[in-house]
């Protein structure tokens, strides 16, 4: 059966993701013997979301995406998709913000989140556009057990957010976060069945870090304990929900898209197209 991966196409760099997904699928079919046919679609309404087995929320302006999602009646279906049905979802930059259970430095009056990752995200952490940058990233998950090269991944950070805190896994909303000034939280949802629960995890895995936090903090005179494991968290995964604060879709490097499609295949349990 065809595996349908949707890309949320309300605003932002959704076409770039679709281009890389197609290339990644070709790679899997030609080099890894994946037989399952893939279909990639733009998601602008609830019907298109319902057709999707997995979803990417692209980079864009998170306030715009959540506003248009609310106006288009998509906010609740998205929460159902990620948190109730627990289908594989990946968010880049704005997508990471929307998938966080808590976020700060939001616009006045806060903004709506989808949730799914027990983390607090700091919006525009690295600053304005003149502070945007390119950095080569060492991502251990790309090296694990396959033949793709161990070359660093080109990380493009555009007014990027960072994962500021890993939150405890809780039932219901993140109460402590809700009471923190200037922080918004996602509404609570319960996984619908055993299969959805099994796709969840109480543990947030740190998938990538950007070294240099110590230097950055020292430069502005902040107090940093050098004994701490310092480095900005720029990629996290919890069960089948994945988030990156950088933009693989702005590169021509397909490795993360290949990796993510493998995760999708594992989650739907179908590499041979026989589901």
């Amino acid at each position: 059966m065809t595996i349908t991966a949707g890309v949320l196409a309300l605003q932002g760099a959704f076409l770039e993701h679709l281009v890389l997904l197609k290339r990644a699928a070709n790679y899997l079919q030609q080099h890894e013997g994946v037989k399952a046919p893939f279909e990639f679609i733009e998601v602008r309404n609830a019907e298109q979301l319902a057709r999707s087995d997995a979803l990417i929320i692209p980079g864009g302006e998170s306030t715009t995406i959540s506003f248009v999602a609310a106006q288009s009646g998509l906010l609740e279906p998205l929460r159902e998709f990620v948190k109730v049905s627990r289908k594989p979802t990946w968010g880049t930059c704005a997508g990471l913000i929307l998938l966080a259970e808590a976020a700060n430095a939001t616009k006045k009056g806060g903004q709506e989140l989808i949730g799914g990752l027990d983390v607090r995200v700091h919006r525009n952490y690295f600053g304005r556009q003149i502070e945007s940058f390119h950095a080569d990233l060492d991502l251990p998950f790309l090296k694990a057990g396959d033949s793709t090269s161990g070359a660093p991944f080109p990380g493009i950070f555009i007014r990027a957010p960072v994962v500021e805190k890993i939150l405890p896994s809780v039932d219901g909303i993140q109460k402590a976060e809700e009471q923190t000034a200037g922080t918004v939280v996602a509404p609570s949802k319960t996984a619908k069945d055993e299969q959805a629960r099994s796709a969840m995890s109480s543990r947030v895995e740190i998938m990538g870090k950007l070294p240099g936090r110590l230097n950055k903090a020292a430069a502005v005179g902040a107090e940093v304990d050098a004994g701490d494991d310092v480095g900005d968290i720029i990629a996290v995964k919890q069960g089948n929900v994945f988030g990156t604060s950088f933009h693989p879709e702005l590169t021509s490097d397909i490795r993360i898209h290949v990796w993510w499609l493998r995760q999708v295949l594992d989650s739907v349990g179908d590499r041979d197209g026989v589901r």
Partner: protein
Amino acid sequence: MVMNDNGTMSNTTLPTSSAANGTPSVPTFAVKAGLAQMLKGGVIMDVVNAEQARIAEEAGACAVMALERVPADIRKDGGVARMSDPHLIKEIQAAVTIPVMAKARIGHFVECQILEALGIDYIDESEVLTPADDTYHVEKSGFRVPFVCGCRNLGEALRRIAEGAAMIRTKGEAGTGDVVEAVKHMRTVKQDISRAQAALAEGEGALRALAREIGCDAVLLKQTAELGRLPVVNFAAGGIATPADAALMMQLGCDGVFVGSGIFKSGNAAKRAKAIVQATTHYQDAKVLAQCSEGLGEAMVGINCGTMAPTEKMAGRGW
């Protein structure tokens, strides 16, 4: 028919110099063009104070353009139009979390330096302001801040990209509320790209001849012909006043829209702003367009471009 063919642009690299990682020098072109890619499918709104900026942010704008007067007022007031007061720009920056753009006069590189120092996210080297140089546009490659520039045709767009612009928009005719010029400029760019593709099929000689004719870099022209679109994000601007105007420009193949005077010169700015944002996302869905076009109150009165003298038009500024 939907003619949007945006999908082919991504993952391109332009022949622009790029800095090494981690150095405090100019960011790579991918980083500059990257923010424009993040704005795609969105609406950038002209605002003249913090209050309007908040209305725009609440309405789902993906960025705001901070300026002292909207183009309709610049047109009405006459005189020399310049960069906005930094104080105003700072107030707007403090009011919102979305990117803040600002306009500099054509060729006025010191206004650009000032805007960069203010931490503006994108500079619009704009024909809406009075040009400061009648020969040169700003050399944009050396700035850390990325630039957007207007165009009427492909040659003009590629000249700006060669100077370092990381985003292009149609010039249209700002401050009129008449979309006809934006449509003309978008169609002209597309026709020019078709010609470039035909020249590419014919051979390198034909492509070089066309580059000479339209006055642009032959390498950029070839790249455009191969992509079948501009090598950077291309927004519509100049005269967009309704949700239908926004969707029209999107169906013609634009990546997003600027709305200048159209929102805050209308009867119900907040409602119109939200409707234009919805229309830009759902530009292919006529049912949604019908819903969001309903009951918006009075649109800006506007000026019919057909009755304007050529000297009244702003699009003729720059080359």
